């Protein structure tokens, strides 16, 4: 009996096409996996099934339903564990476990029953005894994850969707979870697993749908689900975005690194990381969601403090400073540009020029008066170099396209004349032309002795651009690839925690995709 049948689902958020023709079929009584890289649309597809995201087009049949809001999905027996951990921090454990379990007027069971059932369930799942009256805010992340899992399992779903693409569970916990999934499967329910932990998924899934750039590129049955097949389907045709090949800078032995991380630990369990960045280098940083790569760059930028270890900058050959705060990073000439413009970059209510100048007022003022002329000149020169397109610089920054907003932020970073520039996925949602401008600009910066750290969620960005790529996996630095080794196969394998790159056979790729 078919549980889910999705045909040609399309969904765009503004200009980003999250889903561009995704299809999926799963049967009752099986565990089905949705696999794909970051941003391939797997979480969006899961949200379509649970009724949170309404698709622009396509046909949906989930056990005879087409839910348009979560309440409807839950009533139809579809329970979802979202990528974001949905808990009300101020409420107690039992209230969170039984969130939404009551009908609007009638309670499903008494409070005492709920408390004891919440306690029992969490004891079984998380192997810890938690007082059900504890406020959730006081609990660690993995317990919060178990709370939402308990909520979903207690709904006794006929279809359970588990988006674990950034789940906060360790290996042992994952095994316990798999046991729960298998018992649901025994009971005839369907389990959908959204994941990128392919090693574990190979063990328990019966079928898998592979997504790439919002499209379904293949469906694998039990016998065909191997790490090799999955990786092969996931990897796109190499689109070489960066144009001219870049000559690698020769780093002399006596040269001091511009930035150095010694024994940095991202969490209690991860291995310490040593990292050196030399002037003139462009280093790419990659990893799957939750691999810790984003945490690592924010430590380098002085935004977060490491659990252990330190970050240092060298000024001259003997003088070193520790970076332990944003102020220290700023003083040492490290600037940070975030790709999450809305959250960490722009001031949406301010103008273009104000957004550009906001970090420079300190430098461009005399006795408290802002040097407008100086700032305007600086803006003009940066704007030309980056070719920012705008009508009037006193317009609100939100009147610009995403790419041009990003350019203003990058102009802001460059205007501070930094020694090291750290970019966190700056090309997210940016068109190819802007990307090319950005690459050219960063290259120029590097050949003038600057150092660049470039985190990207699109590995194609590193080709012919990065001198080195640092790949993170499960909270640690997993592999460090030299320029000659940077290829789709190597990067992807390392991101999925495979030391040996998968050997690609072009014939089977097209076969699998068909």
């Amino acid at each position: 009996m078919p549980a889910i049948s999705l045909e040609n689902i399309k969904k765009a958020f503004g200009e980003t096409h999250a889903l561009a023709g995704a299809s999926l079929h799963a049967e009752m009584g099986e565990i089905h996996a949705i696999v794909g890289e970051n941003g391939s649309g797997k979480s969006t597809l899961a949200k379509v099934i649970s009724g949170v995201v309404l698709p622009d087009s396509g046909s949906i049949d989930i056990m005879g339903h087409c839910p348009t809001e979560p309440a409807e999905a839950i009533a139809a027996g579809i329970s979802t564990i979202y990528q974001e951990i949905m808990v009300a921090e101020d409420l107690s454990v039992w209230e969170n476990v039984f969130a939404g379990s009551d009908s609007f007027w009638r309670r499903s069971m008494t409070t005492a029953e709920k408390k004891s059932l919440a306690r029992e369930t969490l004891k079984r799942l998380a192997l810890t005894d938690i007082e059900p009256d504890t406020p959730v805010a006081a609990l660690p992340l993995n317990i919060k994850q178990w709370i939402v899992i308990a909520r979903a399992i207690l709904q006794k779903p006929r279809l359970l969707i588990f988006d674990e693409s950034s789940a906060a569970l360790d290996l042992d916990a994952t095994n316990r979870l798999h046991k729960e999934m298998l018992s649901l499967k025994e009971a005839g329910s369907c389990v959908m697993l959204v994941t990128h932990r392919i090693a574990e998924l190979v063990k328990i899934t019966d079928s898998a749908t592979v997504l790439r750039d919002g499209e379904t590129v293949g469906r694998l049955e039990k016998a065909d689900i191997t790490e090799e097949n999955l990786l092969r389907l996931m990897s796109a045709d190499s689109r070489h975005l960066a144009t001219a090949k870049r000559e690698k800078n020769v780093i002399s032995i006596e040269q001091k690194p511009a930035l150095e991380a010694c024994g940095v630990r991202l969490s209690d369990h991860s291995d310490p990381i040593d990292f050196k960045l030399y002037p003139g280098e462009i280093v790419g940083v990659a990893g799957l969601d939750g691999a810790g790569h984003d945490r690592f760059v924010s430590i380098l930028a002085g935004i977060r403090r490491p659990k252990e270890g330190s970050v240092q900058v060298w000024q001259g050959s003997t003088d070193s400073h520790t970076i332990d705060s944003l102020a220290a990073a700023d003083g040492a000439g490290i600037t940070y540009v975030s790709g999450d413009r809305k959250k960490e970059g722009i001031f949406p209510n301010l103008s273009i020029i104000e957004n550009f100048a906001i970090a420079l007022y300190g430098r461009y003022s005399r006795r408290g008066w802002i040097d407008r002329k100086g700032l305007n000149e600086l803006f003009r020169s940066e704007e030309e170099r980056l070719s920012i397109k705008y009508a009037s610089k006193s317009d609100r920054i939100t009147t610009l396209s995403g790419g041009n907003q990003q350019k203003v932020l990058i102009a802001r970073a460059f205007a501070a004349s930094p020694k090291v520039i750290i970019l966190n996925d700056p090309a997210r949602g940016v068109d190819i032309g802007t990307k090319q401008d950005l690459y050219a600009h960063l290259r120029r910066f590097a050949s003038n002795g600057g150092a660049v750290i470039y985190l990207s969620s699109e590995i194609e960005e590193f080709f012919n651009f990065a001198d080195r790529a640092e790949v993170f996996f499960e909270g640690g630095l997993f592999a460090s690839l030299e320029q000659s080794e940077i290829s789709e196969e190597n990067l992807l394998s390392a991101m999925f925690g495979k030391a040996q790159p998968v050997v690609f056979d072009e014939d089977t790729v097209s076969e699998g995709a068909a």
Partner: protein
Amino acid sequence: MGRFAPNLGHLLVPVCLVLVLGIMAAVRAPQTFTYVGLAGALLVAAPLILAAVAITPIAIAGRGGVDLSIGPLIGFVNVTIVVWLAENGITNPVFVFAYAIAAACVWQVLLACFIIYVRISPIIATLAGFMILQGVNLVILSRPGGFAPEWLSDWGWGTELLSPVLYILIAAFVIWFLFQRTAVFQHIRLMGADERTAYTAGVDIVKARFAAHLIAGVFAGLAALCLTGLIGSGDPTQGNTLTLQAITALVLGGTSLAGGKGGITGSVLGAIAMYLVFVVLSSFNFGAISGFMTQLFYGLMLVISLMLALLANKNRLQPA
């Protein structure tokens, strides 16, 4: 009461506040704690207590939901009971009760519609409501006057402790206590604490918000009856001051305007604390400026109690 134990922390400051002010009042104005004194106190404090209770579920429902229109709403019900009902000879108690509660509920449903469907933030929607009702009240009755139904103005003698005002307060507590045990209340709390979690967990957040406003309407109607009983006539402006006082009482009582936290016990304690401040200050001879002194002390009390609550919470969270 074991099941409420972990949530009692926010009541620590208001309880202390009431105790301290109660002792001061007992010293400065011992007549407050006589039989007649308490009966009068109950009568005078009832509208504020009920107004504070009314805005509590709306605050719990989240989105920074603070009902600024509560004062003029109580005023509206007051003037319409006098002008529309009493002047036309409609004085049947059952009908007047039903009218007061229904009128307040209709207004709350209107507010909820604006907040839910027009997506106006509660503070703006209720600010607009505040100004509209203020005007409407003056149109209906341009200056204080008229007569409340006789049975209602008899409440205003305030010489008996076991009066209808006390029964209304008890009824309000019972209603709240029962309401608190319903699934609807859980939905409102969850929505106030985290609307996204509530939505994805399958809570009908539209119905839950309507429910919060409806229960608020019930209490607002009761508050208006108590106010009408207290003044025995219609007053188009008397209710307005209740808005800021009720919000002060709510915050004093530890209910978070961010939503999801609190209950009416805190709001009631807050309202009692405010009444006690009034009593204590009245015992000093401030003459013409006594009204200003009361305002000043309300403000100081608010700041101090929020600071104390912050300290109390810090100490509670640190060992965890």
